[in-house]
C-alpha cells in the first residue's frame, strides 16, 4: 500500500517539477536566476508580471494569440459541425476515404505548410494578421473537429432525427434546437482540442506574423532582447500562458477521455 503511494508521489513530483520551477523563476529577478541554484525566490518580486501587464509588446502578444485562437476555434467547429453530420448520417461516394483523408492531413508536419502559407498570405494581404494564423490552424483543426464530432454524433441514434421530423421540426430547427444540445459535450471537447492546438502551436504562428500580430509563443521564446537576458520575465509569460489552457481543461475535464478516443467510447 505504502509502496504504491511512493511511486505515485514521485511521479507527480516529477510532473510538477518543471511547472514549479517556472513559477519559482517567475518570482525571481533575472540576476538571482543567473546567480545560482535556489528552490525559493529570495528576493520575491512581482516585477516580471507588472511588466507584462503594462508593456504593450507583451500584453498585445496575448491579445493577438487569444484573437486567432478564438477565431480558429469558432471557425473550425462551425465548419466541422455540418461536415461531421454528413459523415455520421449519410452514405455517399467515397465517404470513408474522404473521412480518412481528412485525418491524414494532420500527419504532415506543420513545417511543410509554412512556405506556401507565407507566400500565399503575403500575396492576398493576410500576412501578419490574426486571420492568417487562424486560417492556417483550421487546416489541422477542422479534420480533428470533424473526427471528434462525428464520433459523438454517431452515438446519437438516427431515430432521434426521424422523431423530430415526424414531430414537425424542419432540418435547421431540429439541428439547432435538438441536435446541437444533444451533442453539446462533443462540441465542448472539439472546441477544447482546437483551442489547445491553436494555443500551443508555434511554428505557423511565428512565421505567419512579424510585428502587428505577433503571438505570445513568439514573443516568449526570444530569449535575449535589447535589454539583455530577461529570464524572470519569460518565466512569468510562461506561467500566464499555461493559465488559459488550465481553465479550459477544467470545464471539459469530464469529457476529455472521450475526446481522445474521438468520441468513440
Amino acid at each position, binding site marked *: 500500500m505504502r509502496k504504491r503511494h511512493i511511486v505515485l508521489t514521485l511521479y507527480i513530483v516529477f510532473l510538477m517539477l518543471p511547472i514549479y520551477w517556472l513559477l519559482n523563476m517567475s518570482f525571481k529577478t533575472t540576476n538571482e536566476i543567473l546567480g545560482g541554484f535556489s528552490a525559493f525566490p529570495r528576493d520575491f518580486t512581482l516585477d516580471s508580471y507588472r511588466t507584462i501587464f503594462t508593456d504593450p509588446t507583451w500584453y498585445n502578444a496575448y491579445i493577438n494569440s487569444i484573437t486567432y485562437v478564438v477565431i480558429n476555434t469558432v471557425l473550425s467547429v462551425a465548419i466541422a459541425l455540418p461536415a461531421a453530420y454528413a459523415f455520421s448520417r449519410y452514405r455517399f461516394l467515397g465517404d470513408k476515404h474522404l473521412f480518412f483523408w481528412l485525418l491524414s492531413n494532420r500527419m504532415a508536419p506543420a513545417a511543410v505548410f509554412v512556405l506556401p502559407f507565407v507566400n500565399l498570405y503575403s500575396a492576398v494581404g493576410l500576412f501578419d494578421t490574426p486571420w492568417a494564423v487562424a486560417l492556417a490552424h483550421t487546416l489541422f483543426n477542422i479534420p480533428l473537429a470533424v473526427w471528434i464530432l462525428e464520433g459523438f454524433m454517431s452515438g446519437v*441514434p438516427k*431515430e*432521434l432525427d*426521424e*422523431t*423530430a*421530423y*415526424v*414531430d*414537425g*421540426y*424542419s432540418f435547421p*430547427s431540429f439541428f439547432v434546437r*435538438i441536435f446541437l*444540445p*444533444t451533442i*453539446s459535450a462533443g462540441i465542448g471537447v472539439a472546441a477544447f482540442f482546437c483551442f489547445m492546438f491553436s494555443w500551443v502551436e508555434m511554428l505557423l504562428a511565428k512565421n505567419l506574423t512579424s510585428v502587428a500580430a505577433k503571438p505570445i509563443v513568439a514573443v516568449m521564446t526570444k530569449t535575449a532582447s535589447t535589454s539583455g537576458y530577461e529570464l524572470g520575465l519569460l518565466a512569468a509569460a510562461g506561467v500566464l500562458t499555461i493559465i488559459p489552457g488550465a481553465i479550459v481543461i477544467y470545464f471539459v475535464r469530464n469529457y476529455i477521455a472521450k475526446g481522445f478516443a474521438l468520441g468513440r467510447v
Partner: protein
Amino acid sequence: MALELIEIAKRVGADTHIHPTSLVLPQGSFNVLLGTTLSGKTTLMQIMAGIQQPTSGQIRFNGRDVTHVAVQKRNVSMVYQQFINYPNFTVYDNIASPLKVAAMSKAEIDRRVMAAADLLRLRPMLKRRPSELSGGQQQRTAIARAIVKDSDLILLDEPLANLDYKLREELRDELPRLFAGRNAIVVYATTEPVEALLFGGGTATLHEGRVTQFGPTSSVYREPKDLVSAQVFSDPPINMTPVEKRGSQLQLLGGKVWPAGSSARSLSDGRYILGIRPHHVTPLPPEAPAGELEGRVLVTELSGSESVIHLDVGGATWVSQSHGIHPFEVGAHARLHVDIDRGLFFAANGERVS
C-alpha cells in the same frame, strides 16, 4: 378515409427491401405488422411515415396522393424500439414539442400535455429529463408524445421490445386503451405472434420484404394463405412434414400412417405439406381422430401452466405445446398425439389448399 399503399416498392442499390406491396388501412383501425427481424417492418413503416421514399408506387391518404409530401406535413407520430426522447428537454417539453412546432396556444398545449401525461401516468415526472427516468417511463414519454397531437397515423415500431417482462405486460395492456376512441390509423410492428393475437385488429404477415397476407388477425391466424404466412404467425414454430394423401389415409415419411382428418376430406389424392401448430400436438390424445408421433425427447420447457416439448421423430423435430405440466425426461422415449382435424395442408408451391 384510409391510408392506401399502392404497389409500394423499395430498392436500395441491388437489394430489394420491400417488394411491391398494396395495403389499405382504414381509419380508426389497429394494424399489426408481424415479421422477423429484417423482414422489412421498419422500412415499410418509414415509407408510410414519409421518412423514406418508395422507389415506386403511390401512397394515398384519404384519396390524396401524399407520396412526395414531406414527413413534417403528414401529421404522423412514431415510437421506436429504442427509447427516443429529446435528451435536453424535460418530459413536459418532450410531450409538448409537436404541439409547440405546430404553434398551438400555451393553454391548449398545457391541457393536452396534462391529459397525455395522465393517460400514461407521467404526471410526477414532468419536470425531469428523460435520462433520469426508467426505461418504461422513457417509453411512456415517447408514446405520450405520439398521441398528444391527434395524428392521422401512429406508427409503433416494436415499442415494447426493449422493456423488461413486467413493464412490457403492463404497457401492452394499456396500449389498446390509449388508441381506442381516436380516429387515427395505428400500425404496430412486432416480432411476436402473441402480441398480434392480443391486440386483435388486422394483421399483415411480412417475410423478406413481402406482405404475405393481410386481414383480420384471427382469420390470418386460422386461415393462413400460404406456408410462409403460417410460419411467420406461429410461436413456437409450426410443425411441417411432407405427406401423401391416399383416400382416407395420410402416408408419412418413414411409413407411418395417419387418418386424413376432416380438414383433408375435400383434397384429392397426392403429395402435400402438412402444417400442425404446436398446440395441436399434445401428450394426451384429443377426442377427434389423431395421428401418433413417437420419438426421443430433446427439450422440455415447463412454465407455470404449460409445457413445450421438442421431440425428435426420425431426424425431424416436432414441437408440442400443451396445457398443464408434462415432465418428460430429456432423452426418454415419448408418444404424442396430433389433432389431425386441425391440420393445414399446403401444396408444393406453398399455397394453402385446405
